């Protein structure tokens, strides 16, 4: 059963992405694309002539996607949360190396910003993992999901996670890494056809990755987890529609100033 979920993970992520596009359209009072639009896009991309810059650049995107899929598989299998975070870091570094491997200004700028985003969200994710550990006594997702009460004991940590969700799913106000009007998609820019498709699908997997962290706050009650995910989804999209993009430096300030201090206060509260 779990394996089926793992195989279907990109599809699930695609559905979330499609749903998000519809939701955002409705928030702006327009009709919006069909729910299955991401899959139409994918099929169309398969039909395009593929242009690449050089082989390592294209292959690193494939590697990024595969490692990310592996990470998501690790989540479904209930592995250690720290491994998962670091596997995700590995995937992200592959993508960043891809961005750096071409002599393209936008790609470099995107990769720089992506690195800064890693610096921003990585510590928070690990602190969240430490928070789970303090309550449940284990880093294993399967054990964490058997416990409960995270929601009451780690409320500020949840807010901290809420602050970094937009970074991970590249939504305003923290969509600096992609920033279509500014750096034309950043790392994505030099990809086309089949290889762009891998990046497009890895975006779906990112959704699953970050929302599963939100889901963990529900603990043993999966319904609570689902409600939290749905709530986060709504809030993130609302904020996305209502805010402008901030500068990378401001992003770091917000994450380290607000989210980090919230997380520290919460953990100190648990400890003392």
């Amino acid at each position, binding site marked *: 059963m779990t394996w089926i979920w793992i195989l279907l993970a990109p599809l699930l992520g695609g559905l979330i992405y499609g749903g998000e*596009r519809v939701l955002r*359209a409705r928030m*702006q*009072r*327009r*009709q*919006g*694309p*069909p729910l299955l*639009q991401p899959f*139409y*896009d994918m*099929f*169309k*991309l*398969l*039909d*395009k*002539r*593929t*242009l690449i810059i050089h082989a390592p650049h294209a292959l690193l995107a494939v590697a990024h996607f595969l490692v990310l899929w592996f990470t998501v598989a690790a989540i479904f299998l209930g592995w250690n949360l720290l491994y998962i975070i670091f596997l995700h870091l590995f995937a992200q570094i592959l993508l960043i190396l891809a961005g750096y491997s071409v002599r393209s200004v936008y790609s470099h700028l995107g990769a720089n910003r992506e690195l800064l985003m890693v610096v921003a969200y990585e510590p928070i994710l690990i602190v969240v993992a430490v928070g789970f550990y303090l309550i449940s006594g284990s880093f294993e997702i399967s054990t964490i999901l058997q416990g409960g009460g995270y929601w009451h004991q780690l409320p500020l940590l949840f807010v901290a996670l809420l602050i970094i969700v937009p970074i991970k799913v590249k939504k305003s106000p923290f969509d600096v890494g992609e920033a*279509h*009007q500014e750096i*034309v*998609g950043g790392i*994505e*820019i*030099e*990809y*086309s*056809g089949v290889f*762009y498709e891998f990046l497009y699908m890895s975006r779906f997997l990112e959704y699953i990755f970050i929302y599963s962290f939100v889901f963990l706050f529900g603990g043993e009650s999966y319904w609570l987890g689902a409600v939290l995910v749905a709530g986060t989804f709504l809030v993130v999209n609302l904020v996305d529609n209502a805010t402008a993009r901030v500068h990378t430096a401001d992003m770091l300030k917000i994450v380290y100033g607000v989210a980090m201090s919230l997380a520290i206060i919460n953990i100190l509260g648990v400890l003392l």
Partner: protein
Amino acid sequence: MKFFTTFRKKSPWILHYNAGSCNGCDIEILASLAPKFDLERFGVINTGNPKQSDIFLVTGPVTYRSRERLVELYTQIPEPKVVVAVGSCTATGGVFRGMVNTEDGIDRYIPVDVYVPGCASSPQLIIDGLVKALEILEAKSKEIEKPFKLFGAIETIGNKLSRLNMAKKVHNDEN
């Protein structure tokens, strides 16, 4: 594959380029993307990046300065692709026809599939033109399409084409 071909018209991504337009048509294009006309219901995304787009929306009569960029962008769009010329200037030169610093329309440089008239053309017309373009897009093959002018060296790797320097410098091409 036939199956994938049917999805071409379901997700047309556009690249919008202003080849010296007065911005009238550009504003109309943006209006058609905005919530009122909502082009996204056709799956349209304004990518701003030639390598991921299918439809090349060009406005303006092609100034001398913009010729090379126009052709370079055109060659960087992977096939299948269609070009939509938005506005009278783009089709014929419009009010700029015969002026010293402009060309008379983009079809001197790149093959155009759909001409959208109007000065400036309205969102309704643009959407109409795009829908027309989608039919053409579905019928297109994946063969390499070349620009008419400013066409330069093709290098090869193995026996495959490379698009390096497909658009050459202008002064080499001027007769």
